[in-house]
């Protein structure tokens, strides 16, 4: 099964690095968690970060929009890393997938600023992870799958499972009333055992 040809290799937004940028992004998260994005000014962020307003604009010329994009990118990276650590600690495919999905969902559930936005200002976050913006994220998850599930599966299958993980995680980002609590490893394992594993080639399921 061939993946459709893509013209552009998925490439994450570049996030300014360095202590100051890090402090500013952390300050953004603190302010947004406390009062939401609309009520957070660049001045608030600068004050919280202990730097000048001009410094914020120098590192993030697009102001709050740029900060949000950078924060989203940072969180995606953090989630992929948490998922990687979780998967790498497991001995078999089902365990690795369940651990990765649970770790990702737990990381997102505990992100106070994100949760506040999802509840009160969903329009701010959702465009970054919906429709056309979802495809690059799914591609990165496919690459993640190849890297961290490749010891269990052929690359094509590993990529498909990586993408499946991302879909499940994002599909539960806002899940009022779902019978499956994806922050609960037992529930996630049940989902994986029941709905993912039977669809995989027998030979590829365990190391």
């Amino acid at each position: 099964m061939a993946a459709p040809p893509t013209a552009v290799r998925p490439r994450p937004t570049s996030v300014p690095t360095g202590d100051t940028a890090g402090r500013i992004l952390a300050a953004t998260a603190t302010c947004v968690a406390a009062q939401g994005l609309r009520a957070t000014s660049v001045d608030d962020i600068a004050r919280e970060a202990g730097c000048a307003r001009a410094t914020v604009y120098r590192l993030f010329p697009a102001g709050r929009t740029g900060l949000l994009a950078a924060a989203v990118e940072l969180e995606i990276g953090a989630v992929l890393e948490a998922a990687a650590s979780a998967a790498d600690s497991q001995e078999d495919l089902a365990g690795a997938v369940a651990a990765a999905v649970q770790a990702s969902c737990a990381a997102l559930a505990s992100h106070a600023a994100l949760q506040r936005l999802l509840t009160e200002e969903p329009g701010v976050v959702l465009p970054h992870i919906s429709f056309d913006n979802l495809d690059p994220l799914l591609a990165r998850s496919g690459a993640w799958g190849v890297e961290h599930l490749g010891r269990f599966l052929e690359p094509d299958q590993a990529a498909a499972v990586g993408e499946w993980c991302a879909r499940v995680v994002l599909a539960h980002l806002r899940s009022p009333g779902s019978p499956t609590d994806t922050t609960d490893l037992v529930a996630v394992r049940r989902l994986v055992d029941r709905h993912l594993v039977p669809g995989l080639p027998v030979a590829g399921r365990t190391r």
Partner: protein
Amino acid sequence: MSTPTSTRERVLSAALGCIEAEGLAATSLEDVARAAEVSRATIYRHFPGGRGQLVTQAVTWEVARFFARIERDIAREPDLGARLSRALTGGHRALVEHGLLHRLLRTEPEAVMTELSIATDLVLELIVEYLVGQIAIEQEAGRADPDLDVAEAADHLGRLYLSYLGAAGRWDLDDRAEVDHLVRTQFLAGLAA
């Protein structure tokens, strides 16, 4: 349309027309009243929450109609697998071709995603309910495990379906063979005994 539509539906249809013509932010209650040929008082009677509620319900109404069309389109397929295949291919294409959605995503992404997030929650409930019924039919026909946790399965498949509708990822949803493979491995495999 030969069947008479209720006032509420006329207003919703007019609101959708205004959104199509002017976008979300620019659509005022007055615009809708004029387009629907009703008074403002009439609109408030049906939408006491005012403009905000009207816009949200217009979007929700359009989303519900979108999925009702898919449901009608797949009804004559012989089993759940065939229905899901047709729903994935047809639904994805209909979404790609939805001019208003893509225009709003370009011009007012925050506003449209805010409205869609509300509409999607409601539509997911409908899709899950539909799948619960479909899984029961499969169980009766001996194609699904009678001991399945149906609520968990329907919720999972409903969310997965919406995910594929929004973004095809590595799958070519216009390729019948690929879609059938996707449905067999990620939707049906978990239902089998």
